[in-house]
């Protein structure tokens, strides 16, 4: 008899728990299936020069950050300060991946707000970005020495993410020798 009274309470507790977990999840964040997979091959010109090309092969051997941005992307301006601060510490090379943009607009954006990137890959038709599974900007990938994607952050970077997740992971990837 007592058990029967507890049953609705148990059902309520289980449902409540599920709803509570659901409330704290952001459905717009899609986990990338590319984590721990080789980064897609790319070879792109840079925003500042059509003649200069950077390929995946050029960047093998270093642990680097690839930050997806665009001049039309408001949230990219929000994280710009954080990216700039991170790049200025020289603790990890930061490359940009300019997504769905026009070269003039991208260049103007860099001139206006400052260019934190060693170089920004220019991907106007999102060919490479789609291979990376980019669906919005900003997104940030951490790629290891073997060219494997180790981490992805969706949305504007914050100091907490940089100091709490990215930099420790950079350290680990470097000491792991991979």
């Amino acid at each position, binding site marked *: 008899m007592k058990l029967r009274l507890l049953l609705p309470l148990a059902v309520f507790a289980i449902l409540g728990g599920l709803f509570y977990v659901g409330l704290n999840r952001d*459905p*717009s964040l*899609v*986990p*990338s*299936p*590319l984590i721990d997979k080789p980064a897609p091959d790319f070879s792109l010109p840079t925003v500042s020069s059509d003649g200069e090309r950077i390929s995946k092969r050029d960047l093998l051997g270093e642990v680097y950050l690839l930050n997806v941005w665009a001049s039309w992307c408001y949230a990219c301006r929000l994280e710009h300060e954080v990216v700039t601060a991170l790049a200025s510490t020289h603790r990890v090379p930061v490359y940009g991946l300019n997504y*769905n943009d026009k070269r003039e607009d991208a260049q103007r954006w860099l001139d206006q707000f400052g260019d934190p990137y060693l170089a920004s890959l220019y991907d106007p*038709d*999102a060919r490479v970005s*789609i*291979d*990376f*599974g980019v*669906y*919005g900007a900003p997104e940030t990938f951490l790629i290891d020495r073997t060219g494997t994607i180790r981490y992805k952050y969706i949305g504007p970077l914050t100091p907490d993410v940089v100091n709490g997740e990215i930099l420790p992971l950079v350290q680990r990837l470097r000491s792991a020798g991979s």
Partner: protein
Amino acid sequence: MRALSRMLAAALLAAPILASAIAPMEFDSPQQRQRFVQLTSELRCLVCQNQSLADSDAPLAQELREDVLNMMKNGKSDDEIRDFLVARYGDFVLYDPPVQPSTWALWFGPFILLLVGAAALAMAVRRRSRLSDDEGPKA
């Protein structure tokens, strides 16, 4: 009046076609168009997540539609096209998720709940009929 309602019906029928034709797409044949519309309506747009690739006018959806069409023209099968998108965006792009351990609860949960409900109902009915037997005919 009848002409008006016909026009209205035609406009309504045309709406989904117009929606998927934001970027002009060149189809080789009506069959190809049919297949394209079918396939892109099963795929989720990553930007506007409650819209299909066919419906969304987000720039990414437009680019992915072009990719899908190009792959179709290059003779890729529907499965190969789905695999291309799943490799980049995960099962999330599929409106029809595959049956695998992580989706068992999704696929089989409703049937389990149905069984639990049926069992509870059967127990309740049996108990009630036993109760009324015990009480016997009332005066």
